């Protein structure tokens, strides 16, 4: 049995029974990385030595009989916009190529407390801006199901690594679908938690009011386990909510009897491929078979969501990314005499095209004379959308839709048409805009053999409900089929 193929929950049980050691598991994952990384290219930085050392420490603790958490000794991959003290946090940008944070993100502090092992830092779209991981300054990560296709983005490295067995579970971040869309493209599970349930401290900001860290895994239980470990109030992030969180993986119920599932017509409409529509509706019908009822719900126009999303996200990004100026850290141009030349050349050379485009758009929507028409109106649209979701949740326990309009596309297919690329996010952004939890799980393959993702969106802090439903599907489907990417 190849250990890298197993889920975190399986490995955890085996380690607790001392059937395997963390060193063996970690070794297996790094052997897998050595084998698959040349074709997948999921990692920007590998952390092999420190990982094996940590694994040995965990094994030692276990040998001594110290109490350990279920995640102790599990190899976790980390998206490269999450700060791990002492490891580069490049955000896949030339701008931060050599940046090594002297601090840990709060989620890393939490995982350290659980004795997790870090495999390394995972590739992504530059500063999380993109839907294919193609905007990374360093490399293009390939989809483990088809190397000619993108893994999705921006957390493409995280999704591909988990799908290919190069990490057991991984952390990603989701601002407009950056966890769910790559999860869908790579046939794994991804959860974008309620805004405010996971600390953003140490997550390099793209859009502060939308960003949220979340887990990737090959099973619902793994995602639940990792989410339980990272959520919670953080005094270093004033936007986190003070509330009690359960251990989500302990509370599963696969009972779908009487559950009402909202089906928003507009999310199955134009732009959604026939095959994806069919696969997602099959999942919906499976829930019906389990006793759930499908009810039509009206959600905000996807177009509104996309417009509001790009305005708010880019506005915040233009401000968040202003700090990369060549003064305190990161890239500094060689060509300058004056301060302004240093600023302009540093930023023009250090940022890629997509990042510059979004900074320009954000600057535009905030600039004097345009603020009211764009930024302010987008914020009011956000309020309107929150209200519409609240209404929808009066009728339905959660909402079901495709995660992305289509399955993974070929490299370069959308690179020249930004609007077409942005349409990839049309079904995911509304959850970010409304601050809602949303999850993507695999619901079968299209005729090209590529996985499709089914998205569940719930009311604020209803992660348990979403995890239960996804768990019910997983059980009924007999697990998620990753045999092709794990072989």
């Amino acid at each position: 049995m190849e250990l890298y193929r197993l889920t975190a929950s399986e490995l955890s049980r085996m380690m607790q029974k001392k059937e395997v050691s963390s060193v063996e598991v970690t070794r297996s994952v790094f052997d897998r990385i050595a084998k698959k990384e040349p074709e997948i290219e999921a990692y920007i930085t590998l952390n092999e030595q420190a990982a094996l050392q940590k694994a040995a420490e965990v094994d030692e603790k276990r040998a001594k009989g110290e109490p350990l958490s279920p995640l102790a000794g599990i190899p976790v991959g980390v998206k490269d916009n999450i700060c791990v003290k002492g490891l580069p946090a490049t955000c896949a940008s030339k701008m931060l190529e050599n940046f090594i944070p002297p601090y840990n993100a709060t989620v890393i502090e939490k995982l350290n407390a659980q004795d997790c092992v870090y495999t390394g830092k995972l590739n992504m779209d530059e500063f999380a801006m993109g839907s294919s991981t193609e905007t990374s300054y360093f490399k293009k990560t390939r989809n483990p199901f088809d190397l000619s296709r993108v893994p999705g983005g921006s957390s493409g490295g995280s999704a591909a690594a988990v799908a290919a067995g190069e990490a057991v579970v991984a952390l990603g971040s989701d601002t407009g679908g950056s966890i769910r869309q790559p999860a869908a493209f790579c046939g794994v599970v991804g959860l974008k938690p309620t805004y405010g349930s996971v600390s953003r401290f140490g997550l390099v900001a793209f859009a502060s009011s939308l960003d949220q860290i979340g887990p990737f895994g090959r099973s619902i239980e793994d995602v639940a386990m990792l989410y339980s470990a990272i959520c919670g109030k953080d005094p270093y992030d004033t936007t986190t909510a003070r509330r009690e969180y359960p251990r989500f993986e302990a509370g599963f119920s696969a009972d779908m009897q009487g559950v009402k599932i909202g089906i928003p017509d507009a999310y199955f409409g134009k732009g959604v491929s026939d095959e994806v529509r069919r696969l997602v509706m099959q999942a919906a019908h499976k829930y019906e078979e389990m006793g759930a009822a499908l009810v039509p719900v009206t959600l905000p126009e996807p177009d509104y969501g996309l417009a509001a999303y790009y305005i708010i996200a880019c506005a915040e990004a233009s401000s968040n990314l202003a700090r990369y100026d060549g003064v305190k850290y990161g890239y500094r141009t060689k060509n300058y005499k004056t301060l302004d030349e240093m600023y302009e050349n540093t930023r023009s050379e250090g940022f890629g095209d997509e990042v510059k485009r979004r900074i320009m758009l954000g600057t535009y929507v905030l600039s004097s004379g345009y603020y009211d028409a764009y930024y302010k109106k987008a914020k009011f649209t956000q309020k309107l959308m929150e209200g519409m979701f609240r209404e929808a949740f009066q009728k339905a326990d959660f909402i079901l839709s495709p995660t992305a309009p289509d399955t993974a596309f070929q490299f370069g297919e959308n690179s020249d048409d930004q609007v077409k690329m942005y349409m990839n996010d049309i079904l995911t952004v509304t959850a970010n805009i409304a601050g809602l939890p949303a999850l993507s799980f695999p619901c079968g393959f299209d005729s090209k053999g590529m996985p499709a993702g089914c998205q569940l969106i719930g009311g604020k802090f209803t992660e348990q409900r979403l995890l239960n439903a996804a768990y019910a599907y997983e059980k009924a489907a007999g697990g998620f089929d990753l045999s092709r990417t794990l072989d």
Partner: protein
Amino acid sequence: MIIGLEVHCELNTKSKIYCSCRSSFGAEVNSQCCPVCMGMPGTLPTLNEKVVDYAVKMGYALGCTINPVSKQDRKNYFYPDLPKAYQISQFDIPLCEHGHLDILVDGEEKRIGITRIHIEEDAGKLIHDESFAGTLVDFNRCGVPLIEIVSEPDLRSSAEAKAYLDTIRETVIYLGISDGKMQEGSIRCDINVSVHKPGEPFGTRVEMKNVNTFSGAVRAIEYEAARQIEVLEQGGVISQETRRWDDLKNCNFLLRSKEDAQDYRYFPEPDLATILLDEAHLQELKDSIPELPNKKTVRFMKEMGLPEEDARQLVESIEKAAYFEEIVKAGNGKIIPKDAANWVLGGISRVINETGKPIAEIGVTAEDLAELIGMLEAKEISSSAGNTVFEALLKNTGKHPKEIVREKGLAQVSDTGFLQQIVDQVVAANEKSVNDYRGGKTNALGFLVGQCMKASKGKGNPAIMREMLLNYLNG
């Protein structure tokens, strides 16, 4: 001349506004920083509760309306002293609005409108030095908490502006929210100035930045008003612009014109949730506001009959003002407040300056000083004996003035027989001075009185002896 002021005042909290770094002046460069105030990737601000409290206190002190629901905004611009490339400030919903401050100019009170008070973070410090090829950046000041107090354009002269600044400074010191130290840059201001002829509408205003001292503010206003009048008299027009005050050269120069005005792209700070202040807490803060210096000064003048200068000097120091009031109270309406003020501003202030001790540690109780003043006013002792008693009190022996006077035999002697004896002795022994006086050198009288005091060992009533001397000399 129309003047409006934007005063930035550094708050004296222990830690910075958005992180837990120490917030103090004069530390080694970049020794009071952390990833948050240096704007490192992924870091987030957390708002210091004291900063909110202090700003609200100032709001109550200046009669403002407090916004119980408020927020913070980002002001975006690039400069090396601003690590995040935005300053967290407050834009459209400041903590405090619509207040006023009464200032005292030439004995008259004048009410100046306060537009708003908001909280924000300070920027770092740029070090320009010939020995370095570039500019050095010290981030210690980044995130030091500030309140910005914006006045209405209600000031009409540099003297009014000075009085306004002095009153702001005294007020923050009274509230205990700032050191108010100019030399450490605790209070800085931007000044808006315009001029117009009487009866005509207000002129175009010019903003002046970088005014870091109160005397600089007076000079900057005078300079700018004169500059504007000169431009107008030569047929020119004043354009809306920002100028930079150079305190060393004593002049200002153009920083930017209206055309290249900055576009700060303010928007709500998404990293910080809403500032929500509950009524009970606001009431608590409101109740904590002491009598403010401007009100105290007027009361000292009106109720205690002090001259403006004395009242101001006392009020400048919370402890002196309080001590003065204690003395007056201990005097039980029997001593003249002006005498108490003289002692506080005289002897007590001298001891404070010499020893650096607070009044409480000097050890002269208000009761003792009131007793001493009472004896002086009743002419029971001479003023020189008063000084002797005061010196004795400073030794902290626990003895009260009356005991000291008794022990040292300092009670003033007014017995004319005894005093005449002394006067006779002195004139006999100082024939030259007597002749000098009679020859027209009238200041010889002072010498003779002094000699009489000496001969009486300080106990003789100098007024009576002086009268006796005059009788002899003119007789």
